[in-house]
């Protein structure tokens, strides 16, 4: 393993570098008789200043995991710690960038970005304005600051949402399939943009995705989840050098990471498939034996 490198000279202080620990976290839905476990005994560490990507089969419980870490829901058992302290409800220490846009449609880009600090009133007006202007410039939306979300393209909306999250100086930035629904071209541009943004400040990041290549190019640690209920199937350390380039996806290492991840995911998919098959086979057997 490489030694822990602290991003020297990074403009933001340690504020963006929380350390998250999930200890035996479980969560299910439904009453006892129809209870369905969605997250099962997940233990995981999200290292400070690192990007931890989470991949897993569709519907396995990734968003549920996000909701737990963000505090929108609380675990049934287990603990979630931020810098050693248990997390409570939602807080701007753990900001989420949601799947598809969650900008307030009635606020302009600028108003959306300053929303958090403004309602909390924890930032002097002038400093907030300067910060917002800086961020708008950074995400390339200065010209669009007085536009409403509906007037922005998909990629612009994602960038506005990133800015809205970052201005709150979260200790952990959580992203739940943030680039899902964008067209291939915009998606790649957004990945590139986000990669640069991450490498500039190295804010602790939990990045949920269903695209292996996206995960490999962005992540320091790649967590592979099992089928529902989600368990940690494997954690792969991605040792590609930073700053990352998309060309690295063609390298041998990247290929091996991809093979390993796909193999695990394939296994998981097969498992659920064979489970269904055995249920069907059992049913058919039961029916035919009754008929004879």
């Amino acid at each position, binding site marked *: 393993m490489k030694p822990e490198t602290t991003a020297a000279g990074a403009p933001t202080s340690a504020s963006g570098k929380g350390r998250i620990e999930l200890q035996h976290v479980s969560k299910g839905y439904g009453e006892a008789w129809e209870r369905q476990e969605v997250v099962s005994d997940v233990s995981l560490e999200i290292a400070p200043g690192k990007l931890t990507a989470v991949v897993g089969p569709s519907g396995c419980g990734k968003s549920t995991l996000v909701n737990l870490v963000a505090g929108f829901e609380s675990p049934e058992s287990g603990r979630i710690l931020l810098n050693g302290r248990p997390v409570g409800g939602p807080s701007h220490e753990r900001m989420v960038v949601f799947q598809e846009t969650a900008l307030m449609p009635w606020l302009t880009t600028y108003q959306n970005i300053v929303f*958090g600090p403004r309602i909390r009133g924890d930032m002097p007006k002038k400093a907030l304005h300067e910060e917002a202007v800086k961020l708008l410039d950074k995400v390339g939306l200065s010209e669009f600051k007085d536009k409403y979300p509906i007037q922005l393209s998909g990629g612009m909306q994602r960038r506005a949402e990133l800015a809205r999250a970052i201005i709150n100086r979260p200790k952990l930035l959580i992203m739940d399939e943030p680039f899902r629904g964008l067209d291939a071209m915009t998606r790649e541009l957004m990945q590139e943009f986000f990669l640069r943004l991450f490498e500039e400040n190295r804010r602790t990041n939990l990045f949920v995705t269903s695209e292996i290549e996206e995960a490999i190019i962005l992540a320091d640690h790649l967590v592979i989840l099992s089928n529902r209920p989600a368990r940690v199937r494997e954690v792969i350390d991605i040792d590609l050098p930073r700053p990352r380039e998309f060309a690295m996806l063609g390298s041998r290492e990247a290929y091996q990471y991809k093979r390993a991840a796909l193999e695990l995911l394939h296994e998981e998919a097969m498992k659920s498939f064979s489970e269904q098959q055995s249920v069907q086979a059992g049913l058919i057997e039961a029916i035919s034996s009754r008929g004879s």
Partner: protein
Amino acid sequence: MAVAASGTGASGGGLRRLRWSALKRNAKLWRGAAAIALTLVLWECGSRASQQLGMQLPFIGLIPPPTAVLAAWAEVIPQFGYWESWYLSFKRVLAGFLSAMVVGIPFGLLLAVSRYCREIFFPPFEVLRPIPPLAWVPASLIFWPTNELSIAFVTFLGAFFTIVINVLGGARSIDIRLLRAAQSMGATKWDMFWRIVLPASLPSIFTGAAVGMGITWEVVLAAEMISGGGTQGGGGLGFFIWNSYMGGSLEQIVVGMFSIGIAGYLSSSAIRYLGDRCMPWRRLF
């Protein structure tokens, strides 16, 4: 020289294009105007056909021709009574509509944000809602001391249920991600209501208002016709039509009907205008 010549040529072409595009842009307007004109001509011919053919056409032959209607209109326009009808109807519509808004919007929002209130108030609300406003007329005539108050009450009910159900539906279907995003950013209950629930419900508030306004007009006119004039609760456009019917003036009946159409159009335009002003982000669709 050559440059200038080609310049004017281009600008001439540009001008022609401009005119053409302006014409095309107005095409919708022209089509609408042509359709109305055609309708009027057909209507005129249809109702005058009896004089030429010596026999009346079915249905349309009974309706006075537009020229006669216009003449009747010109006759009533200088009359005080006609404008008083407008004034009385508008006053009743506004009273019923505004009170329904003032009571209905907060009530709908309250039901939306408080589960407790929803559990208490929603069942009786849902039982009363399907009762047509006009079914309330006899009861409210007994209950309220004056006809005018009865009309106001029935009008209020007509709009109230629609507004509440729209506001409630709108406020309950707010995208959970917006609520969660606000929660993460530290929104208090107060912020949540004023900065998220209220603006997110505005579109359905205005939808409720538009539908409610339509119902108020229906109810006011029906109530005016039922109350049948007199000194109390009389007058209004509904009474104008009723009176014309009693007086046997077919032309005036049609004048009354069109007056109501215009009044309804003015009311819904006002609501649309207000909606555009209050929700600039919706104008961009």
